[in-house]
C-alpha cells in the first residue's frame, strides 16, 4: 500500500509542476491540509482513509472508493491531471455534505477580495479582469488546443489565460503579506520560460500579469528583473484598495 510520505515527498521534492498542483490542493482542501499536518511516517493510505472514515462517518463502501482513488492518485502522481482528478474524486466521494473548501467566487458583503483564500481570490480577480481589462482579449479557456482537443474547464492551455495577437498572458495574484509566494512565482516563471508557446507558428511574447494587494508593489518588484532575464515580461499592478 502506498505511503503518505509519497504525498509529502511530492510537496517537498516534487517537480515544480507537481508541487504547484499539490499546493493548489492544499490551498483548496482544508481536509488535505489537516491530514498533512497530522501525518507521521507510519501513515499509509489505509490510515488516511480510516481517519477520513471516522471524521466523516463513512460507510465501508465509501471508504473503499476513497482508498482506490487515492491509490490511483499516488501511483500516477498528484502532479498529473489524472492523479489530481483521482485525489479530488477521493475527497469528493468521502463528503457526506458539500464541503465549503472553495469559497463562493463573489466575496461576501463588504469582504475584501484579498481576505479570500488564494484560489478563490485568483478566480474573483480573474473574473473581474476578464470583463474589464481583458475584455478585448481571447480567454484561452474558450480556445481549442489542437493537442488536447476541445476546451475542458481550464486544462487546454494550462499556463496561459489570455491571448491577443502575438501576446499571451498568464494572470496571477499575490498577497505579498503571505509566505512562500516568491518560491511559487519562481516556479511559475520557470514553467513559463521553459514552455515554447507560439501563435501561428511564431514564438509568442510571454507576459506574466501579477496583481498584488494595495501596498504590495515594492515587495514583488524583484520578479520583474527575474522574469526579464528569462524572457518573461512581468507586469505588476495593485488590485483594489
Amino acid at each position, binding site marked *: 500500500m502506498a505511503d503518505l510520505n509519497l504525498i509529502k515527498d511530492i510537496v517537498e521534492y516534487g517537480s515544480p509542476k507537481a*508541487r504547484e498542483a499539490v499546493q493548489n490542493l492544499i490551498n483548496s482542501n482544508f481536509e488535505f491540509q489537516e491530514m498533512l499536518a497530522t501525518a507521521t511516517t507510519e501513515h499509509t493510505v489505509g490510515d488516511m482513509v480510516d481517519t477520513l472514515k471516522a471524521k466523516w462517518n463513512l460507510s465501508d463502501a465509501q471508504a473503499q472508493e476513497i482508498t482506490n482513488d487515492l491509490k490511483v492518485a499516488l501511483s500516477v502522481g498528484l502532479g498529473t491531471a489524472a492523479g489530481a482528478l483521482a485525489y479530488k474524486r477521493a475527497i469528493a466521494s468521502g463528503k457526506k455534505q458539500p464541503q465549503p473548501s472553495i469559497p463562493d467566487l463573489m466575496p461576501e458583503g463588504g469582504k475584501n477580495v484579498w481576505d479570500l483564500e488564494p484560489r478563490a481570490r485568483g478566480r474573483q480577480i480573474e473574473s473581474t479582469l476578464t470583463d474589464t481589462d481583458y475584455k*478585448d482579449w481571447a480567454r484561452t479557456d474558450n480556445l481549442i488546443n489542437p493537442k488536447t482537443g476541445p476546451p475542458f474547464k481550464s486544462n487546454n492551455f494550462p499556463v496561459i489565460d489570455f491571448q*491577443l495577437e502575438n*501576446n499571451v498572458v498568464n494572470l496571477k495574484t499575490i498577497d505579498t503579506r503571505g509566505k*512562500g509566494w516568491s518560491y511559487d512565482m519562481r*516556479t511559475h516563471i520557470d514553467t513559463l520560460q*521553459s514552455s*515554447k508557446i507560439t501563435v501561428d507558428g511564431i514564438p509568442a511574447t510571454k507576459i506574466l500579469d501579477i496583481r498584488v494587494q494595495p501596498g504590495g508593489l515594492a515587495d514583488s518588484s524583484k520578479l520583474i528583473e527575474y522574469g526579464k*532575464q528569462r524572457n518573461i*515580461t512581468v507586469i505588476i499592478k495593485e488590485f483594489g484598495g
Partner: protein
Amino acid sequence: MFDIEVVFSEGLYDSSPNVWGRLVQQLNDFKEFEVIDGFTGKKMLFGEVLRYLKQNKRKSFFVELAGGSIEFSLVADKELCRLDIKNLANSLEMAHSLIAALIDEPAFVQARVYDAEYDRWQNAENITLFEAANVEHSHLPKKSNGLPFPLTQEVVDISNNPGRWVLRKGYIEAVGSPMWVSKSLLNSLDVDEKELMNVDCFSVENLGSVLKIVACEQCFTADVGIQAERQVMLRKILFKA
C-alpha cells in the same frame, strides 16, 4: 561582489546536475552551509544538492546560499540555457575559477563577469523598479513598452545604454570584462577573430575553443568615459550593434 552570467546551448537543459557538479569543487568554502531550494523553500545542506537534483530529476535549479544564489534555467524561446551566479563571488579570482570549471563544457557559448549594481540600472526599464528603490528616473529617456492595453506602460529606453543586454536566439548580446566567448559563437556571428585579437586596448587570450577577452582592468561600472567607449567598441565588434 562579482556576478557571473554563463550561457550554454539549450541541449544542456537535460544535464543540470552535471552543471552543478562542475561548480561544487569551486564552491568548497560553502560546503558546510545550509542552502535553500529557491523553487520550494526546502532547506538542505550544500553537499546534498547534487543528490537532490538527481533524485528529483530537476532540470532547472535555483539554489540560495550565503545570501547569494546559483540559478540554472532554460530560456526556451531563445534556445539557450543560462547559469547565473549572484552575490557569491567575492573576488575576481573566484569568478575566474567558477567560469574556468565550465568553459570546457561542449555546450558552452559565452560568459561574463559583471558588477551587479551597474548591470541592474543599465537594464532597468520598468518604472516600478526605480520607484521601489527610490531611484530618480525623471531624467531618463522613456518609451512605450509596446504592449496592448491593459499592459501598456511607459518604460525607460535603455537601447543606447553601453551596459545593456539583450536575449538573442542562442546567445545574449552583452559585454563584460572579463568575458569569454566560444569560437562557435564567434563563427555564427561572423566575427573576425584577428580583428578582435588586434584591438590594442583589449587583452585577448586563446583558450582553445574559447577566447577570453579583457577590455578593462576592472568590471565595467560606468556608462561614461573610457569604460563606455570600451563597452561600445566590444559590442560593435562582437555583435555588430
